[in-house]
């Protein structure tokens, strides 16, 4: 049986916790360990934060799209923005890469998504936006 949901919300940092709570609720029936739930919440947190901060520069008038799909134990998380896009996806995915050189950015968003997911696909076009698709086998 396939289960699917999608949502759109304003591009604010406050909504990142809403997106995390949503994925946790979506998976409530799955009997996952707290550790796996936290990994999945972290994937969502990193992807949605990127869309809000980098895609839209925290413009609450813009919308972030998220869909969750669960089929035969495979979770697919899709996060999309119609924002500025990433000029060099390969470079953006390198550990410690950051567009902002202030001291408090780890540049680990994509790295963490990759470690906690089974696959991460990034589709981006400058001026059109970015879509991140992460999959993870549960159990």
């Amino acid at each position, binding site marked *: 049986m396939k289960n699917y949901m999608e949502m759109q919300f304003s591009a604010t*940092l*406050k909504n*990142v*916790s809403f997106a*995390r709570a949503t994925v946790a609720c979506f998976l409530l029936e799955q009997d996952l360990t*707290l*550790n796996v739930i*936290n*990994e999945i*919440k*972290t994937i969502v*947190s*990193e992807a949605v*934060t990127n869309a*809000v*901060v980098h895609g839209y520069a925290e413009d609450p008038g813009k919308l972030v799209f998220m869909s969750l799909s669960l089929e035969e134990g495979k979770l697919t998380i899709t996060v999309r923005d119609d924002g500025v896009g990433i000029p060099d996806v390969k470079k953006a995915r390198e550990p410690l890469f950051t567009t902002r050189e202030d*001291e*408090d*950015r*780890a540049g*680990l*968003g994509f*790295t*963490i998504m990759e*470690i906690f997911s089974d696959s991460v696909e990034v589709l981006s076009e400058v001026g059109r936006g970015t879509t991140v698709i992460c999959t993870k086998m549960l159990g």
Partner: protein
Amino acid sequence: MLNVQILIKKNVLYARLEGELDQYTVEDLRVRTTELMERYQIRYLVLNFQKLQFMDSSGVGYIIGRYNRLKKRAGGVVLCSLSEHIWKLVLLSGLNKICAIAKNEDEANEYLGVVL
């Protein structure tokens, strides 16, 4: 939401975190601790994660930022009461190479008793 209980003893600042640490909540934590670290000439920051339910790379960035500041004062950061999830983030980001790790605040104090 993030609640922070802050305690200052001599030149050590203890921050007990409760709730969720992400890009949204990290800002207030950064402003408060940076101001206090300057005002009280703090050398060591003890972060207690016992009641922290969630953290992402924003928390890692925050810790690296505090470490870089305190290092200039010959101080550092001690992380204590880490959950399995936070410990995983600490390992994959290499924070364990630049911060001291303690089981709890008592162990952090033992460590600080030695270095201070």
